[in-house]
């Protein structure tokens, strides 16, 4: 996707869906006008509550509608740097966050919050493996 940085977060014990859920929830807190898109189907979800985390493996979160439009029009470009976060959760044990510029304040803060939330849950309250679900 974007030619940026991949940050891999261990999520052992949390479960894939919960990890994706937590990351998205934090991202949309940072970006109040965020637009959420499925990374596999391209479907735009009308808000956090519409995302089927049990079925999703990738989400793109754009800062706002203008950012989505810019990405759709230009692809990765200097104009839209740091306006999209790519979340990938294909396994139960890790989640990858892809961002443009790790040093940008907006991304640094966002990643810090995501890392803190995931770490809290991994450390003190792991959830049973989702593979146990029917």
């Amino acid at each position: 996707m974007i030619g940026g940085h991949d940050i891999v977060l261990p999520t052992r014990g949390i479960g894939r869906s919960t990890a994706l859920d937590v990351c998205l929830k934090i991202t949309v807190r940072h970006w109040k006008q965020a637009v959420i898109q499925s990374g596999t189907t391209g479907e735009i979800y009308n808000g956090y509550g519409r995302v089927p985390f049990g079925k999703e493996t990738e989400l793109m979160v754009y800062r706002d509608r203008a950012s989505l439009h810019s990405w759709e029009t230009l692809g990765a470009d200097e104009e839209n740097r740091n306006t999209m976060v790519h979340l990938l959760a294909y396994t139960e044990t890790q989640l990858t966050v892809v961002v443009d510029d790790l040093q940008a304040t907006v991304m640094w803060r966002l990643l810090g919050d995501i890392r803190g939330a995931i770490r809290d849950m991994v450390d003190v309250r792991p959830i049973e493996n989702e593979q146990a679900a029917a």
Partner: protein
Amino acid sequence: MTNIIDIFRRAGLQRTIDEAAEFWGDNAAQFLDGLADTLSQASIAYTKRFPVAQSTIPPLNDVGIAETLDHNPHKLRAFLQALEETTSPEMLVMVWRIIHGDDIKAAEMSYEEGKRFHLRVRLEEQGSGTATSYDSENINDARLLRHLGMMELSGKPVFTGFFAHRH
């Protein structure tokens, strides 16, 4: 309501049922009936507060549970754990709303040993901005607070959601 044992099993919480059966022994059926009864009461309380047509969040009934199980089983697990921890229909309505996206705008807890406990949580629906409040005077409902995710946003406190524990 759908069979409570079936809901737990399909949500991946078989161990919850097994452990309850072991702990309660001959009274296991009574325990499970209690869960089913609390769930029914929560469903009634939800419908009173949120007529289906007025909310984008799935209703707290068989249809909504099935939809949540299909799309977001991790959210249903969090809800079922809450069902084990509280007998308050109001608190369960609150949990259902949080797991489906309502923002936690305020929470207040007061306590005096041997005298009183009060928990009030105020939620806001994303998009519509509809605000609702939930109250409890049962100290056991403080257990629900352990499910809350938290963060600081620009140095300010934010509860991010309601998540499941490992069973």
